[in-house]
């Protein structure tokens, strides 16, 4: 870009016109957006595959206890870090929505391309968890409160609580019951049984394993509150992680 000043513009002026300058800013903005989006997509996708993994891959892992606990907590890491970057540097209320959208685009490419396209697992076995409304919640709480502390507490709790309800509209249909050879199964169990996964035996599912059993059948709210509380802690940690990642360090000229 400095090349144009040497040949084309009057001495001392970087830009020929205001329009040229604005055009360059807009172009750089778009490049930034695309690059940031791609970087967040790649890194968040790897993070989420490693930590939420099977819980997010398979419909028959999406139970009422482990999945709504694990998935929001590990998703919170990148949401908090991304907010820290977008909010403190740019006052942009899009940190959380951007990462969850990036993650979901990456996941959908993966599920459609690999799980369905190459291995023929039907999409109703392998669709990802919905997260977008949680991103809206977190971004707008931060925007209105203007405080990352409030966002950690209120936003974090809501993040955990929203997870199951926003996934239920898709999940409910697969929790209808069917009978196979005299055994009662939900459609989710049945899809997992029908569509053979050689490397994923049934026993690695963790369907409602745990110790907290005193709330009867209300398993989800307990898991959701727990996920909310842990999400608060994760938010504190990863907000600072994001802050640390978005600092610019310069080298002294003598060191170069």
């Amino acid at each position, binding site marked *: 870009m400095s090349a144009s000043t040497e040949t084309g513009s009057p001495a001392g002026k970087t830009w020929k016109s205001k329009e040229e300058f604005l055009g360059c800013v*807009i172009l750089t903005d*778009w490049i930034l957006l695309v690059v940031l989006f791609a970087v967040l997509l*790649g890194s968040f996708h790897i993070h989420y595959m490693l930590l939420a993994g099977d819980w997010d891959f398979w419909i028959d892992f999406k139970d009422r206890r482990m999945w709504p606990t694990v998935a929001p907590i590990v998703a919170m890491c990148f949401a908090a870090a991304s907010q820290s970057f977008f909010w403190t*540097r740019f006052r942009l209320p899009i940190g959380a929505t951007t990462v969850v959208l990036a993650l979901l685009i990456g996941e959908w490419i993966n599920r459609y391309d690999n799980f369905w396209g190459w291995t023929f697992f039907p999409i*109703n076995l392998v669709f990802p968890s919905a997260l977008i409304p949680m991103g809206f919640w977190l971004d707008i709480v931060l925007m209105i409160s203007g405080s990352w502390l409030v966002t950690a507490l209120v936003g974090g709790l809501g993040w955990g609580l929203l997870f199951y309800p926003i996934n239920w509209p898709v999940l409910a249909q697969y*929790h209808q019951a069917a009978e196979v050879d005299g055994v009662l199964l939900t459609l989710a169990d049945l899809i997992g049984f029908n569509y053979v996964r050689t490397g994923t035996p049934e*026993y690695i599912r963790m*369907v409602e394993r745990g110790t907290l059993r005193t709330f009867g059948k209300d398993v989800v709210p307990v898991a959701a509150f727990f996920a909310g509380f842990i999400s608060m802690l994760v938010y504190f940690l990863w907000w600072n992680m994001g802050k640390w990642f978005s600092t610019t360090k310069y080298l002294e000229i003598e060191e170069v």
Partner: protein
Amino acid sequence: MKSLNMQSMAKSVTTRVVRLWIFGLAVAGALTTLPAATPAAAHGERSQQAFLRMRTLNWYDVKWSKTELNVNDEMELTGKVHVFSGWPQAVARPGESFLNVGEPGPVLIRKSAFVGEVPVPRTFSMDVGKDYEYKIVLKARRQGRYHVHVQINVKDGGPIVGPGQWITIKGDMKDFTNPVTLLEGSTIDLETYGITWTYIYHFFWMAAAAAWILYWFMTKGIIVRYWQVKAGKGAELIGQDEKRIGAITLAVVLLGVLVFYAAANREFPRTLPMQAGLLTGISPIDEPRSTVAVQFKGGSYTVPGRELRIRVKVANNGKDPIRLGEFTSAGLRFLNPDVFTSRPDFPDYLLADRGLSVSDSNPIAPGETRDLEVIVQDARFDIERLSDLAYDTDSQFGGLLFFFSPSGERQKAEIGGPVIPKFQAGAAL
């Protein structure tokens, strides 16, 4: 010239952006695709350690009811499995096991599975030393030619792969259906059930997120905001108007969540949690006690090589004379041609129909006890890497011997123990 380029650059921002997006998506596609790119062609049936394959599950009587099917046709994969008494210490016991199929993706779906009479969509428990009968009903889904194995996954032990057979499927996966009757009576096609709605729901929210991001991006971009924050005017970027937009958006989003949630509950008022849990108490095969007693007296094998020699003491406590007809281990079958006059129907790569010989081929009379040397000799012993036993921590062999009476009645005896490797010239550990 170059400044002209700058101007045209600014003008063609939009086309560039589109191209960048396409490129970005392509890169994202490639990156997310890579980890799964390893082909499933080599499914590792030989790479499992020899002692593991010989001393855990002994597969026998494995049958594939068909080897050629059309899409939507069903076949049965049946057989028996003996849980080896000397189950290796290095492998977890089969207290939690899952009857599975070794195939490259769900090219055949598992319609039902039984161990004994018990349906096993879930994990079940097996006892060491016992024999179990299984049946898997498979329905052809995708056209092609596939190697289909019976397999039992053992928790903390890994998948234990049984014999495999090539299955040819004709037709087109597009025609495949998987009808399932719900408890409330209606029938659905599970192959496609709910998929369209799943797409709509997910892409609706994703579009909303994209709109939100673009709205803020288009109003002031990234760099301008950075300069303003740097100049200490960050507070001006989010004023009352912006907060109002935020509050309204949040209200609409939460209302949307509520509406979708209520609609799902109205449409599906009766739902169940997922069903899971260990099935215990599955009965093993109820068979009379074997009238043949076999005692292992030692043996040796060549590394690398194609030969296993074992010395056994055989006592015939039955009423008929018997002859040793078969040794089976790790899915391989070594047959004694004196006993098997015709070749049984079994995958060729696992069937050594002249692979077994005995030092004394006369029948063992009722009440008689005889010392025998059994020679297992076939290239398959080496090809299937059973001679790699020397490289295992627990280099003991294992398997089943089958004895036959003149009327064809079969008696089974488990055999196993330490064997001494003989290293040939040029072979290295």
